[in-house]
């Protein structure tokens, strides 16, 4: 099967953690609520109801676009995308077509086509009530915000797809856009898969839908690749279609072919004026970005010289990464213990303050503290060696304390009590 080049493009949906839905004031968080309790005339698509844009959703998508290096459109607008389904109350989905909020961008070297905003549909629930099979509609999710990331067909293996999705998930969490949890449905995936002999894009693609966990994602894509390569090997011509994954049979099955594909009859949504954003507004959002995982990963590797595995675990949660750095500042010499106890024992969960963790480490390692004259000598030496740092401190840069403590600990071979060092150091500096 390896004679074929695998070509995959992704459509990833992320439910942002906004307070309200995309076009009404109902709650975005619909998880576990009583059916149809989180609805209003707008998200029920009642006659006469009109959409009103949720600005928080716009801010979230622009944050994501900026983080992925997309070009942010100064002018974007919404379109109506028409299709019939019982959980789509207006008979159309308000989405975007040309002029989405973000164009282009890249993640892990994989090119992104665009990122757009749209509303979600409701949910159908199939049940048997009093012996009768019925389909019920729950509109709690109807009209909630969705961010869709569409990539170019640039993935050549499932491994690349998984790496991309994990990194995207991490970025969404770092930027407080979404928890992007596949199992809870706040991240959903559609993969367009085709195989090519010559590396060029073939004239068909198979859209694989409803993949809702990382576990099934790998199996589903592999099953589809296997199906396609078998078909091609036997000389069969593959067609454009939409397929789903059967978790029990471990195969994909056809849901819809091109012949009965939708004509969405897109046209501009007249009920919503186009969104015009000037560059100063975009700059303001840019200020809200934080250090992205990839940058943090590199910095951690250089600064802390931890193993790749340790770094990855520490940066997986931005709060833990920050905790680690604070603990390090307090006791640079204890870096190995800090990392070990955080990664292997999750000890950071027991101490809300990093200082608590440090005390615990010292207790565990039963360090004999250096005596106070040694401490004072080391402080004097370090201050003598770093006149420029002292100047920065006097200029108001309090954060240099961490650096100085680190230097002092080095001279004491890590045997100084950080609290005493800090106390004495501050005394000296204020003399």
């Amino acid at each position, binding site marked *: 099967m390896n004679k074929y080049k695998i070509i995959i493009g992704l459509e990833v949906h992320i439910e942002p953690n906004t307070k309200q839905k995309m076009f009404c004031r109902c709650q975005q968080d619909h998880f576990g609520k009583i059916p149809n309790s989180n609805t209003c*005339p707008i998200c029920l*698509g*009642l*006659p*006469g*109801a*009109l*959409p*009103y*844009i949720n600005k928080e959703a716009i801010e979230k998508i622009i944050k994501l676009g900026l983080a992925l290096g997309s070009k942010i459109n100064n002018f974007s607008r919404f379109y*109506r995308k*028409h299709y*019939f389904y*019982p959980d789509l*109350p*207006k*008979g*159309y989905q308000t989405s975007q077509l040309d002029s989405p909020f973000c164009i282009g961008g890249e993640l892990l070297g994989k090119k992104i086509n665009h990122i757009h905003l749209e509303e979600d549909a409701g949910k159908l629930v199939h049940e048997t009530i009093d012996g009768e099979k019925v389909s019920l*509609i729950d509109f709690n999710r109807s009209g909630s915000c969705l961010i869709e990331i569409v990539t170019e067909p640039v993935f050549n293996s499932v491994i690349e797809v998984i790496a991309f999705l994990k990194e995207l998930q991490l970025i969404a969490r770092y930027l407080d856009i979404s928890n992007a949890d596949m199992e809870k449905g706040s991240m959903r995936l559609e993969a367009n898969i085709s195989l090519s002999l010559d590396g060029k894009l073939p004239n068909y693609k198979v859209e694989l839908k409803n993949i809702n966990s990382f576990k099934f994602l790998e199996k589903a894509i592999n099953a589809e690749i296997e199906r396609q390569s078998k078909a091609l090997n036997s000389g069969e011509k593959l067609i454009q279609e939409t397929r789903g994954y059967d978790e029990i049979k471990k195969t994909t099955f056809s849901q819809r072919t091109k012949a009965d594909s939708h*004509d969405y*009859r*897109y*046209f501009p949504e*007249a*009920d*919503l*004026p186009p969104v015009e954003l000037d560059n100063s507004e975009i700059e303001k959002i840019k200020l809200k970005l934080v250090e992205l995982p990839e940058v943090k990963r590199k910095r951690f590797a250089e600064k802390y010289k931890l193993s790749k595995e340790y770094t990855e675990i520490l940066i997986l949660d931005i709060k833990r990464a920050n905790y680690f750095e604070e603990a390090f500042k307090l006791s640079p010499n204890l870096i190995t213990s800090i990392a070990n106890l955080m990664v292997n024992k999750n000890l950071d969960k027991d101490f809300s303050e990093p200082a608590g963790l440090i005390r615990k480490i010292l207790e565990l390692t039963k360090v004999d503290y250096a005596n106070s004259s040694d401490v004072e000598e080391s402080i004097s030496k370090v201050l003598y060696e770093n006149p420029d740092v002292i100047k920065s401190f006097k200029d108001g840069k309090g954060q240099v304390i961490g650096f100085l403590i680190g230097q002092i600990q080095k001279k004491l071979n890590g045997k100084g009590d950080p609290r005493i060092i800090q106390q004495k150091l501050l005394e000296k500096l204020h003399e």
Partner: protein
Amino acid sequence: MNLPLTIKETQEGLKSKKFSAVELVDTYLEKIKKYNDEYKIFLTINEEGAYKKAKEIDNSDFTLPLFGVVGSYKDIFLTKGIRTTAGSKILENFIPPYSATIVKKLENAGVISIGKLNCDAFAHGSSGENSDFGTTLNPWNKEYTAGGSSSGSGAALSSGMSLISIGTDTCGSIRLPANYGYLFSLKPTYGAVSRYGVIAMASSLDTVGPLAHTVSDVETVFNVIKGKDYLDATVTEKSINNKNSKFKIGIPKEFFVGGLSKEIEKNIGEVIKIYKNENVEFIDVSLPSTKYGISVYYIIQPAEVSSNLSRFDGIRYGGLRDSFGEEAKRRIMLGSYVLSAGFYDAYYEKAMKVRTIIKNEVDSIFTKVDALIAPVAPTPAFKLGEKTNDPLSMYLTDIYAATANLSGIPAIAIPSGFSDKKLPLGFQLMAPRFGEDILFKLGKIFELATDYKPKVAF
């Protein structure tokens, strides 16, 4: 009691205890009950609600801007707890859980809502004959159309069943019934009045406006219903401050050729003379692209109709899809066609481009004139049944209406006499976007110059 025909007369009567609000409601209801079965003006009568509100008004201090004004709404405005059908069997049993913004605003301003008015189903039509609940007859002559699609909104006033009414105008549907009913009406600037809670026909063209017996009543109601509600994102709050004491009106030559009836042409000639005597200047202007207006309209409108009606999919609201009437089906098919892959560029996209050209032409004319004058329709009210088998000739009724809707400008319909057959005649004035004030001033000049007196048919 003799029914008052203006807000001023109504409110003075209430203040001086000449009559109470409850007595007013008695009188209107008496008239409705006497004539409604025959004339098919109201679809739902809000008797209980009206009396409740009237009692409130009688016990109030008479300070609200519209206290005691008996009003009615085209049945396309959602009214909480009161059936709203849009004139269609699809919604025959639909009781809305919320009210349209304008209904709330009017009721908060003291309006007594007396009922819901007949109209062409989903506002598709120019004669009221597309209503699934029977055709509204014109109170001035019941063999003739009352105008559409807000057929009940015009007839309710010219029959004295209501003091003011609200209609929607997507391509003349407020102006035509006013024109055929000897009434004033305003089609406001697109985006001046909220469309929230109004069953949509064509979202980029729909406007909401009042019908009344005087310019000043139209103005008073407009001032209550306009402005933001933070539910309709297309609403903006602007107004052009026109300090002119001398107005200049353009006569677009394209509106006075072809199918215009001689009687209307002559009547508008007289109107122009009256204005000239009042020191209003007229110049000939040209809007060459407006001749494409109705073609452009009949692409954009069905496209938006096909989209807006797709929520009536038979799953909710009761009525199944086969309850759609012929005209709705025609528009759904036309609209789906012009939006479908492979045809979008040739039809919808092109129509939108021409719409922009028309808008630009209109904008540039308003750098030269304060307003434009035009007929409302090519002929006085036509006989019922005359055009029902010829949809195209029905569509042409709206030929003079399309310009204002496509370019989003406001237009006022003004009554200006009666035809040989004793049917009302009128004309329309258009102004730049948010130039409603210019229209009110010009309307009042005409009222004064002609010593206008409100009239009802019976």
